């Protein structure tokens, strides 16, 4: 009897059910947490993702079983009702200053051009045997926008959510490493030295009106993008109108922090070893890199093309900021420009395509939803 009880307790213990895959996943989780802590790589996401990945690979915890602690927020706030990505977009909108786009709206085109990598990767994923909804979810990694990637993947290919989200956030963190070689390869030193005219001042009325105009135009053209665009623009309206500072503060601090905790943990928890340790995960990481590289290159090439027609030349380095990754990509443009000329300041110019890239990625996601799921 006592021996039977001992046997039962032993059999119910997690370590009896450990697999080699679980231990590999612990190592991957530890790598993410270490990179976040030591290298500051997207720590707000990679720490909770790493921990979620770690804890879900402890056998028999039941955290992602129906009704489990992490299943509930995953099921209701990400998978079923897609609440968390739009709420994060509200925070992003409240944190984003769209004045560089208003001052130089031509940079919107760079945000569009940098979506090229999304579509190149869409074809690459199809060639590798992924389905169209999966290919769209993998391609959108090239937009360098984590919440959009999660939103689209949860709607189109939830089985890939962990891999696409981790790839998107990992590459966003690696922007300072991935982009500069491509930027230097595609531009001459003279091009990198181009100084741009100072941006004009944007009035408060323009800044307040922008979220309304942008919502009107984008939602009329791509209704499927409304949850993300609408939330981003209401967050921006909170910021710019100046009379709801509490709402603006909540959107860009407490609210986004709370949902980020659940988002990170739940994304990590979608990666048990038997799901993540598949050839598809490696392909997703490889394709994510391709997407990023093509998006960066397309932004720069488009900026060079625009220079053929513009009187006031633009520095082609700002084209690479068309991948979203706000504000990291814009900072990288500034760093590379200063390497060529220490007196060249293009950061605010690069913020234009950078925030335009966010709008472009959301539009691309909305169009994927309309075309493939509509």
């Amino acid at each position, binding site marked *: 009897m006592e021996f039977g009880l001992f046997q039962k307790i032993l059999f119910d213990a997690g370590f009896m059910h450990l697999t080699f895959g679980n231990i590999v996943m612990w190592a991957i989780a530890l790598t993410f947490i270490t990179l976040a802590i030591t290298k500051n790589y997207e720590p707000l996401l990679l720490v909770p993702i790493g921990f979620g990945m770690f804890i879900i690979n402890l056998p028999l915890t039941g955290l992602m079983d129906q009704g489990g602690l992490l299943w509930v927020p995953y099921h209701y706030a990400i998978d079923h009702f897609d609440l968390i990505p739009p709420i994060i977009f509200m925070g992003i909108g409240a944190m984003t200053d769209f004045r560089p786009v208003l001052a130089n709206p031509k940079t919107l085109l760079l945000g569009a051009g940098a*979506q090229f990598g999304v*579509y190149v990767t869409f074809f690459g994923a199809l060639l590798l045997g992924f389905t*169209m909804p999966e290919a769209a979810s993998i391609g959108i990694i090239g937009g360098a926008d984590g919440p959009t990637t999660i939103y689209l993947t949860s709607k189109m290919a939830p*089985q890939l959510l962990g891999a696409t989200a981790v790839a998107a956030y990992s590459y966003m963190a690696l922007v300072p490493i991935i982009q500069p070689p491509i930027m230097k390869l595609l531009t001459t030193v003279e091009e990198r030295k181009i100084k741009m005219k100072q941006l004009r001042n944007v009035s408060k009325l323009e800044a307040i009106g*922008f979220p309304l105009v*942008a919502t009107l135009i984008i939602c009329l053209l791509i209704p499927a993008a409304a949850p993300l665009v609408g939330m981003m623009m209401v967050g921006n309206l909170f910021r710019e109108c100046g009379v709801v500072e509490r709402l603006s503060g909540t959107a860009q601090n407490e609210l986004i922090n709370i949902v980020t905790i659940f988002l990170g943990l739940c994304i990590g928890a979608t990666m048990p070893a038997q799901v993540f340790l598949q050839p598809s995960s490696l392909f997703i990481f490889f394709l994510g890199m391709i997407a990023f590289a093509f998006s960066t290159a397309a932004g720069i090439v488009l900026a060079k093309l625009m220079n053929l027609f513009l009187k006031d030349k633009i520095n082609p380095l700002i084209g690479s900021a068309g991948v979203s990754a706000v504000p990291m990509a814009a900072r990288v443009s500034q760093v590379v420009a200063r390497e060529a000329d220490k007196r060249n300041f293009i950061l605010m110019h690069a913020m234009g395509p950078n925030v335009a890239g966010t709008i472009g990625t959301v539009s691309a996601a909305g169009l994927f939803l309309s075309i493939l799921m509509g």
Partner: protein
Amino acid sequence: MEMSESEGANGTGKAVRVSPWHNQNNNKRCGMVDWGKALETFVVGFGGVFVTLIILYVGIVIFSKVVMSVTSMTAKKE
């Protein structure tokens, strides 16, 4: 490509649509891609992003001009 149903592939205990990558028994890979639909997705998708942002560009330019002219008219009256 055809998808198959598999229970709980994402660890959530619910049915999800999975590709052959997640179904080791299915060795059919890229033979059934509808390349016409893929091309249409590229043209409509990438073109659509450009058209959307060009319309937004035009909208912002018009909006900014209206705001600036209203502002200057108000300033003159004052």
